[in-house]
């Protein structure tokens, strides 16, 4: 029997790794993938709590998180396409026309 805290620790580790990737990567698509990794870490925490409490609400929320992440991925990748088309680069450090 695996204690729930093991799953939660793994969720925290994955979230931290996603955050590190979000901050240190320069390619805009890699940054977006780090966001998806963080969402997955939260999903794991939800399902672990669902098992710990014996309730199904956690899994209902995971369902909604997955659906919203899919919609966000579609729109976000469309935005990335437009930005790449206009700036000819995928490097976030070069997309700085709003910078002072």
């Amino acid at each position, binding site marked *: 029997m695996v204690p729930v805290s093991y799953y939660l620790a793994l969720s*925290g580790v994955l979230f931290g790794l996603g955050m590190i990737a979000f901050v240190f990567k320069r390619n805009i698509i890699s940054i977006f993938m780090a966001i998806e990794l963080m969402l997955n870490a939260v999903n794991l925490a939800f399902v672990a709590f669902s098992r710990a409490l014996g309730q199904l609400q956690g899994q*209902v929320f995971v369902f909604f998180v997955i659906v919203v992440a899919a919609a966000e991925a579609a729109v976000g990748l469309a935005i990335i396409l437009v930005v790449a088309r206009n700036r000819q680069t995928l490097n976030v450090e070069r997309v700085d026309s709003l910078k002072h």
Partner: protein
Amino acid sequence: MTLQLFLFFIFAAVAVAGAVSLILQRHPIHSALSLIVVMVALGGLYLLLGAEFIAAVQIIVYGGAIMVLFVFVIMLLNAREEERTDFSRMARWAGLPLAGVFLVEVAYGLARAGSRFPPAANAPFSTRELAGLLFRDYVFPFELTSFLILIAVLGAMVLARRDESE
């Protein structure tokens, strides 16, 4: 060591290895493939937790639709390897250790909170009950998400369309 614990450690190790590989790889396509590995490992973890429907949805939707979308966009945009620029000194000596500290702190805090729960009941989850929840108690958010997907599809089509210059 029970079989469950053994399987948990295998899936957890694969997930963490995939996440670390996502950070360390320079070409975004390798990061995408590492993320697919993480998602499949998480699907296995959901099966261990007894959430069969969520495990299937994770593999089909996340691994089979969202990540395929990522791979197609990477191919479409002809993404290259990231250039080799060294971290600034601040990032290397302060940023990375602090990020590691944050990671350990979050994991430790979550694990300590989790240990306060009574030992989990092993009653199996039923997909029928989950469907009852989705379509009775949570039917309003459910219909809203279908509307949200429609808007997302329309938005993506409008955004990515090339202008026909007259």
